[in-house]
């Protein structure tokens, strides 16, 4: 069963096409990396896959479920890490994670587990607003993987992380996690290295869709011109 199956996915914003004609298949355990300039539709694509936006045309199948009819069935198996950490600034890391745990039906013990995995246990009792951006990102990652999702949707996940932290979270959201992943990236070098499938978006349309092995760095750079 394919993890992702898109056929002619389109989403418009008024009269403008935010996404159009996006078709691809992603197998379980594979990584799709999406490149493209700002405004190309990367975040829109991610949000559609996360069931936050409905597709306006075409068919979308995530983990075997059709969107939007069966969005509710698949929500619990998707983890999203977007630009926003989705954490309440006045609550502590632990309180935030406990809240999300309750929403996903996850036991409290798991909260401690992920806090340990991102090495934030020591500062878990401090409000989010007192933490540095790197730490907030780590807690956000913890939130994204809290419910052990099958599909990870990551929007520039390594932003704000130092090399040590990047190494730390690799087993959670990196290649070491061995989950199906869709990553939006601005880094041609690193992005290409971890991709199985590459999608290049330009003004909402797929300008490039190929196995990573067949794509060169220059082709990706072309997207941004």
């Amino acid at each position, binding site marked *: 069963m394919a993890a992702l199956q898109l056929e002619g996915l389109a989403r418009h914003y008024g009269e403008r096409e935010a996404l159009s004609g996006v078709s691809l298949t992603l197998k379980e355990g594979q990584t799709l990396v999406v490149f493209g300039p700002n405004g190309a539709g990367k975040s829109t694509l991610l*949000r559609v896959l*996360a*069931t*936050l*936006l*409905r597709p306006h045309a075409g068919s979308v199948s995530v*983990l075997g*479920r059709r969107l*939007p*009819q*069966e*969005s*509710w*069935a*698949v*929500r*619990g*198996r*998707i983890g*999203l890490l*977007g630009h*926003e*950490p*989705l*954490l*309440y*600034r*006045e*609550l502590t890391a632990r*309180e935030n994670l406990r*809240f*999300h745990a*309750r*929403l*996903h*039906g*996850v036991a409290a013990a798991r909260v401690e587990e992920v806090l340990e995995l991102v090495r934030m246990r020591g500062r878990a009792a401090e*409000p989010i607003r007192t933490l540095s951006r790197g730490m907030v990102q780590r807690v956000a990652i913890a*939130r994204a993987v809290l*419910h052990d999702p099958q599909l990870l949707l990551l929007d520039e996940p390594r932003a704000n992380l130092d090399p040590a932290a990047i190494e730390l979270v690799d087993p959670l959201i990196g290649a070491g996690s061995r989950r199906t992943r869709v990553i939006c990236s601005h880094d041609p070098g690193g992005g290409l290295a971890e991709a199985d499938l590459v999608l290049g978006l330009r003004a909402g349309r797929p300008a490039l869709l190929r196995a990573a092995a067949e794509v060169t760095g220059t082709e990706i750079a072309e997207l941004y011109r």
Partner: protein
Amino acid sequence: MSTVVPDRSSVSAGERTGASDGRAPGTFAVVRALLRKELLVELRTLESVPAMSLFSVTTFVVFHFALNRNSVDGDLAAGILWVTLLLAAILGVNRLFVADAEEGGFDGFLLAPVDRSAMLLAKALALLAYLLVLELVAVPAFGLLLLGPSLGQALPVLLGVLALGDLGIAAIGTLVAALAVRTRARDLLGPLLALPLLVPIAIGGARASSPLLALTHPGAPAARWLLTLGLYDLVFGLIAYALFDFLLED
């Protein structure tokens, strides 16, 4: 813990299928979790309730000077009390979803495999709680500063009438707050939308409270007004429940 609750929002009737894959907490648990978070944030920031309470007391002072009256009773008293409560409620309504809108709380909730009406219930219950605390401050203040006749026996009945009105304010307030928060002019649209919708509650509430606050021959609230309040609460509670999902989804 794993009661299955498909949410209605992104699904039209007839397309709904069986169970969600994996865990899906029941609505009651979700409402409790949301309410807990809501009250926790409020306790930490103390944003809404102290402001609403302070506002109501200040308004009583303004009324004293503006009306040039030392004490009021009957219709006038009922009117002042209800207007003040409505305006204070609007303050709370304005802040209700702001934290969620600004700190990505909507996405966090929308990603969870839960019934979306749970947010409506939790927020309405939170607003209701704020209103009840507000009244615990405002009614004694009113009795102290402006009210002529002493409250005494009428107090429990008055609080009952207030609670009945609060249900409607909570339902409408939550719906309007959700509607206004994702627009550009959220602080303006909230009050503009809420006040006309709350007029019938003001009518029912003030007319019902008026006999309780009468100077001579205090009496009981007329059943007609209690019925009006109750009916209004019911209708708009149902409407809010039916429409809320459409505000959250995209």
